């Protein structure tokens, strides 16, 4: 057995077993309606988590995601309220801004040789600050086009709805998987996570790749912000606080090594689904309180960090015998 699949398998098993246990208690949870809602409710988180997966795979971290999501939401709300611009054009504008923002952070990380943690921390403050500068209040979005997009859905057998944003998240995951495994850029991301120095010696364009990674992360944070804007039909500078933490948790629970170099975009989807499942279960139960979500996610995080540590130790030993 290849140990690199072990965390992914563990995540999948946890998800299947947990889902089975849930449906044993609440048979209704098996319906496509629940699945559809789960995808819709976590769409923005899922899209952000794909970006976070790439960043973490490369050995970095992006703390600015939640703020960028909030900024995008406020930006869209303000621009749609005060100008006659079509939302589609506003979307393109927002994505251009967030992508450039990510690229700038990547450039600073690479060229100033500063830790991603501190650079994206500055990005986090800056993006949320800019959101506040645009507007302090929550601004509703009442554009017809939002209604059209939100009205789009595919009816699943059993009455569930795969909404536009839920479907978009799945598409983003699909694209993420293709980028990670079928492009040179994807391999370079893994290469950076395996060791920047070695990667450079092997000819990986480290500067370009680092900038691309954070640009991608910025782009997906922007896309996530658009989805969040569609989902809440509003823009609020205080929204999406701590989304980066949920995204990091989803990535790690999805089996990606926090130190970089190993993991799968697909695993992150399962990480998102596990988080969503815990929330859904708590809603179904009715007596359990929402804080159990955080505690359980914290415990899962701990378990996966321990497991990864164990696998590292084991694989270190195993090499001698193969």
């Amino acid at each position, binding site marked *: 057995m*290849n*140990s*690199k699949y072990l965390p992914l398998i563990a995540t999948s098993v946890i998800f299947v077993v947990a889902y089975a246990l849930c449906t044993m208690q609440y048979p209704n949870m098996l319906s496509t309606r629940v699945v559809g809602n789960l995808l819709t409710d976590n769409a923005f988180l899922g899209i952000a988590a794909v970006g976070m997966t790439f960043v973490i795979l490369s050995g970095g971290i992006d703390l600015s995601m939640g703020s960028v999501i909030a900024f995008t939401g406020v930006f869209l709300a303000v621009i749609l309220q005060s100008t006659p611009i079509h939302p589609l054009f506003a979307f393109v504008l927002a994505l251009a801004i967030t992508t450039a923002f990510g690229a700038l952070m990547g450039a600073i990380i690479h060229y100033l040789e500063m830790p991603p943690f501190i650079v994206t921390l500055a990005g986090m403050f800056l993006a949320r600050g800019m959101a506040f500068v645009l507007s302090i209040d929550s601004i509703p979005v009442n554009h017809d086009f939002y209604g059209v997009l939100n009205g789009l859905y595919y009816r699943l057998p059993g009455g569930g709805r795969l909404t536009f944003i839920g479907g978009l998240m799945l598409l983003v995951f699909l694209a993420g998987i*293709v980028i990670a*495994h*079928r*492009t*040179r850029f*994807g*391999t*370079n991301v*893994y*290469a950076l*996570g*395996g*060791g920047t120095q*070695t*990667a450079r*010696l*092997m*000819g*990986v364009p480290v500067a370009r790749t680092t900038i691309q990674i954070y640009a991608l992360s910025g782009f997906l944070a922007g896309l996530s912000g658009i989805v969040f804007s569609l989902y809440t039909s509003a823009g609020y500078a205080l929204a999406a606080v701590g989304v980066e933490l949920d995204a990091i948790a989803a990535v790690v629970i999805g089996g990606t090594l926090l130190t970089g*170099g*190993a993991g799968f975009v697909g695993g992150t989807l399962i990480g998102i689904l596990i988080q969503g499942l815990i929330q859904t279960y708590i809603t179904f139960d009715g007596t359990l309180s929402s804080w159990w979500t955080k505690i359980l996610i914290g415990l899962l995080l701990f378990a996966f960090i321990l497991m990864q540590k164990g696998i590292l130790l084991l*694989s270190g030993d195993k*090499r*001698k015998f*193969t």
Partner: protein
Amino acid sequence: MADHSADILVASEICKSFPGAKALDNVSFSLRAGEVHALLGENGAGKSTLIKCMTGAYARDSGALMLSGSTIDPRDTLAAQQLGIGTVYQEVNLLPNLSVAENLYLGRQPRRFGLTDNRRMNRQARELLNGYGIDIDVTAQLDRYSVAIQQVIAIARAVDLSGKVLILDEPTASLDSHEVAMLFNVVRSLKKRGLGIVFITHFLEQVYEISDRITVLRNGRLVGTHDTAELPRKQLISLMLGRELAQTEHLARMTSANAGEIRFRFSNFGKRGKIKPFDIDVKAGEVIGVAGLLGSGRTETAEVLFGVDHADSGRAEIDGKPVRIGSPRAAIEHGFGFCPEDRKSDGIIGDLSIRENIALALQARRGWSRPLSRAAQNELADRYIKALDIRTTDREKAIRLLSGGNQQKVILARWLATNPQFLILDEPTRGIDVGAHAEIIRLIEDLCDQGMSLLVISSELEELVAYSSRIIVLRDREHVAELQGERISAGAIVEAIAASRLPEDA
């Protein structure tokens, strides 16, 4: 030499200095197409500096490089690779988390419709490796394979990318004999294809098995280039280790040495995978020398004695009472001290001052709650700066700003401040200038006269012969001989190192 037209890579009169040390002094080196050329020398002899100058990793200060008859000046290793010089290091420079095929084709994966064509890449990788006689699952992650296989993969990548010169920097250091044989088959087939191969190793058997010529470096200087067939093993070792070996005689230090009682006794001491169990008795006021080539288990012996690597067999006694040495801390409690070989990573605390570096071990032994007063620290620092003649403007200077020799003296002072009973010195004179060198040797002799017991590891044989009352010789992670009294001479050490392996190993 004989046929210059066949020289594929020529480095002439290369010089390279680092702050405080001349790493290469007018070294010339030539490599012929279709030969395996061994590059030998102890640590710090300049082997890796020479390699790095030839591959562009370092910018040389002066000297010229010619590849296939034209002058080259590679900016970095990537440029050298494109010119045709590929390098494979002991720590495999591949990415352990990528698949074998990805490692082979990183940055040049075949593409179809803009996406990488993994199927084609895997097929090409399999074919490429088949040419090297290995048939493995190329889609598996690299770190699932043994270091030997990884080395072959690294060689395959380097040859595929470069194709003229292959530099192997200690590729066999962590391989077993079976794996070495496999690797050598690969090397031989590449030799037949006309590649020039530079081979760095510290295993002399391997040098004689695979190489056509040998170049020896010592202290940054070229000692000489010889045809392997015409260079007997004993002569090679003396070229590597010292100058006029036979002449230096043991300077009758046994008078004081034999007087002491046995204070430290280690019996059947060892750790699996590091050093085979050994016995050492250390008397008060004697210096035990430890000799052996690089990788023979010298540092491992020191680390097991000092508790860095917890011994998994045997027992230790001090003055007849059994003691447990499970950690450096425990060793220090029992009056041990240890100056490690790698000063930078294991010895100095770079940003701390000379004063703090000297006080560190004593302070650690006292515990955090019983601080040495500033006055006591100053006194300690000043005393040792004076006693050991540490050259510095003042005691508050950060230790990283000192030269190697002065750093070494500070580390020595750190241990002397704890008033140790048993001091282990691993290569105390490596990489320091001649003046400091002599002072450290004098210091070793003084300490010994004061009744301290010392264990000194060194690759400078004359030095060992001069101050040791007994010399333990290591080979292949095993203590193979102990020389005493009149039997101590550089020649005898070389003899013991060079003695062919035991019958069952051969």
